[in-house]
């Protein structure tokens, strides 16, 4: 029973991190507003959101899939969890120290939103933030399943990784889309500069927190 609760909690964490990424302007919802206003067409808003979601999903899978391969090495599970946790904490600490205005994202032309979204998510470690949560889900699933053939296990961890990435991206798109549409339709662009908070510090701390929890769990 405790396991079921933990599993549910971890899935909620996947959704919550998606919502969190979605409301962060740094993940791109203002681009959807800009697209709709520039093209003078509401459809452009949805098109831009789809491109941003695509890029975000790619960034999630690019991080999660390699880990899903590793997870099938059941004997090394603890080491993998510790390694992943350290990686996430490390990135969090790096982002805490390096608080510079990012430059390279500005080089991407506005017409290439998928690429932009992929790079933005990767640079912020949005995918890495999911890794400890994902590993936790896999861990619990395997405890329930006992010893299974490596190939079966890999298939199931890959499926879990895909599901985690999709659920996270859907939550992210729902949150960002709601904000983008709200600003486009009702709130107006004044809301943009009023609601834009510097989440850098919070974001870096979130990475450290997620990594720390996972490390504590693994040890």
């Amino acid at each position, binding site marked *: 029973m405790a396991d079921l609760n933990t599993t549910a909690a971890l899935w909620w964490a996947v959704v919550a991190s998606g919502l969190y990424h979605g409301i962060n*302007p*740094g*993940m*791109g919802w*203002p*681009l959807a*507003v*800009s697209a709709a*206003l*520039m093209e*003078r067409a509401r459809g452009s808003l949805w098109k831009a959101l789809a491109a941003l979601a695509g890029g975000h999903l790619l960034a999630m899978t690019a991080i999660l899939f390699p880990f899903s391969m590793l997870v099938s090495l059941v004997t090394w599970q603890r080491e993998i969890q510790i390694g992943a946790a350290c990686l996430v904490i490390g990135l969090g600490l790096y982002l805490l120290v390096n*608080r*510079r*205005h*990012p*430059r390279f*994202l*500005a*080089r*991407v*032309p*506005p*017409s290439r939103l998928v690429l*932009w979204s992929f790079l*933005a998510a990767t640079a912020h470690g949005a995918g890495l933030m999911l890794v400890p949560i994902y590993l936790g889900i896999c861990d619990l699933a395997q405890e329930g399943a006992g010893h299974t053939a490596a190939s079966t296990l890999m298939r199931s961890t890959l499926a879990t990784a895909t599901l985690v990435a999709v659920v996270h991206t859907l939550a992210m798109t729902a949150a960002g889309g709601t904000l983008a549409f709200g600003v486009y339709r009702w709130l107006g*662009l*004044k809301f*943009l*500069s*009023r609601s*834009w*908070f*510097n989440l*850098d510090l919070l974001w870096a701390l979130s990475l450290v927190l997620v990594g720390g929890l996972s490390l504590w769990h693994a040890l």
Partner: protein
Amino acid sequence: MNLRPDPTFHATPKLAMEAPAETLAFTLMLSPDGSQPDGLAVVDVDPKSKSYGQILHQVIMPYTGDEFHHFGWNACSSSLSPLTGHAFLERRYLIIPGIRSSRIYIIDVKEPLKAKIHKIIEPEEVFAKTGYSRPHTIHCGPEGIYVSTLGGGGPDGTDGPPGIFIMDCETFEILGRYEMDRGAQDKHYDFWWNLPRDYMVSSEWGLPPQFENGIVPEDLLSNKYGHAIHFWKLRERRNVQTIDLGENHQMALEIRPAHDPAKDYGFCGVVVDTTNLEGSIWTWWRKDDGTFEAKKTLTIPPQPAAPDDLPALLKGFEAVPPLVTDIDLSLDDKYLYVACWGTGEMHQYDVSDPMKPVLAGKVELGGIVADTKHPNGRDFAYGPQMVEISRDGKRVYWTNSLYSTWDDQFYPDDEGGQMVMAHVGENGGLTLDPDFYVEFPKGYRAHQIRLEGGDCSTDSFCYPSV
């Protein structure tokens, strides 16, 4: 780094117009003969203040011979670009290049009345890191601060073409050249862009030997100054199209794109047509296929004059050319202000239809022949030159100097620096404020004006005004 975007950053030009009015202006003071160091004057422009129209503070530089001209902010409304995803810079520093020395000053104006030098970038660093010299126009854009230059390498700035370089917007470190492919561009002056549409437009004045020691009449009469505008893929850093305005259209200077990024057009002012001494305004626009076109949409004729009233340079022509040396567009893209530095007039054109500018207002002040006095009865040296419009479009400020050596050729008997302001009528029209007249300290001339919180030639907007 702020937790919220700087309150002076606005998503659209319309929101910028609704922001509180400016209370301070920053104006550059230059010593024409380099006998004193140049400076930055902080001017009170708050009509409710007791010191309205007075210089409240001066930052005097430690070196002489810089020759201040144009300047700009470290950050503007372009920080709200959805592409950078990071809106937390502060509008806090003014970047002031010396076009004669190639030295660059970073002035901290967080407390405007205690404005002070934050950093000095020595000319050697500019030369070494960019191969360019004589830095000029400043715009804050993607990747940092863009600085246009008028000269290439070597002592006279003709070793290689001039161009644009980029500076980090926090450390003010010079990062390097902008251009990947400059195409036919071999001279430089102004530049501006449309950020969401991802293009840039640049213009041409002349190479350093053509302006540093004064205008070279033979070069002008043989059409050797710049007469082309260049269109760039902004983020690809590539010149994709050059439009030659015709070699008689000498000196294509200020580039003023519509502030609303949904509009795909802008203006460029040409100083003089060598066939008839006219000044002209060109409208450029982007076509559906992504290429550009430009057309002369306004000409301003010269005024006949007796040779005795003219400086040596113009005696043979028996006329005063208007000399369109600066233009500026209001944030609602409605009025284009055109400085006629030769005839001594400031024109206001209604450009609601950008292809058909209509004269809506005019102020006469100074001028080579007219030499019109200010309504307060005082002299105005030279003519109306660098013009800046308040964000709300209701006040227009200008100063009088063009460039030290050129001032002396066109106005050999004038001296002094002044800044004045005119009010814009409800339906256009332009009237000088008799009570606003700033006289700069003896030995100084005045050039570009920047208004507190941004103005009509500093901020680039990333969202349309709807």
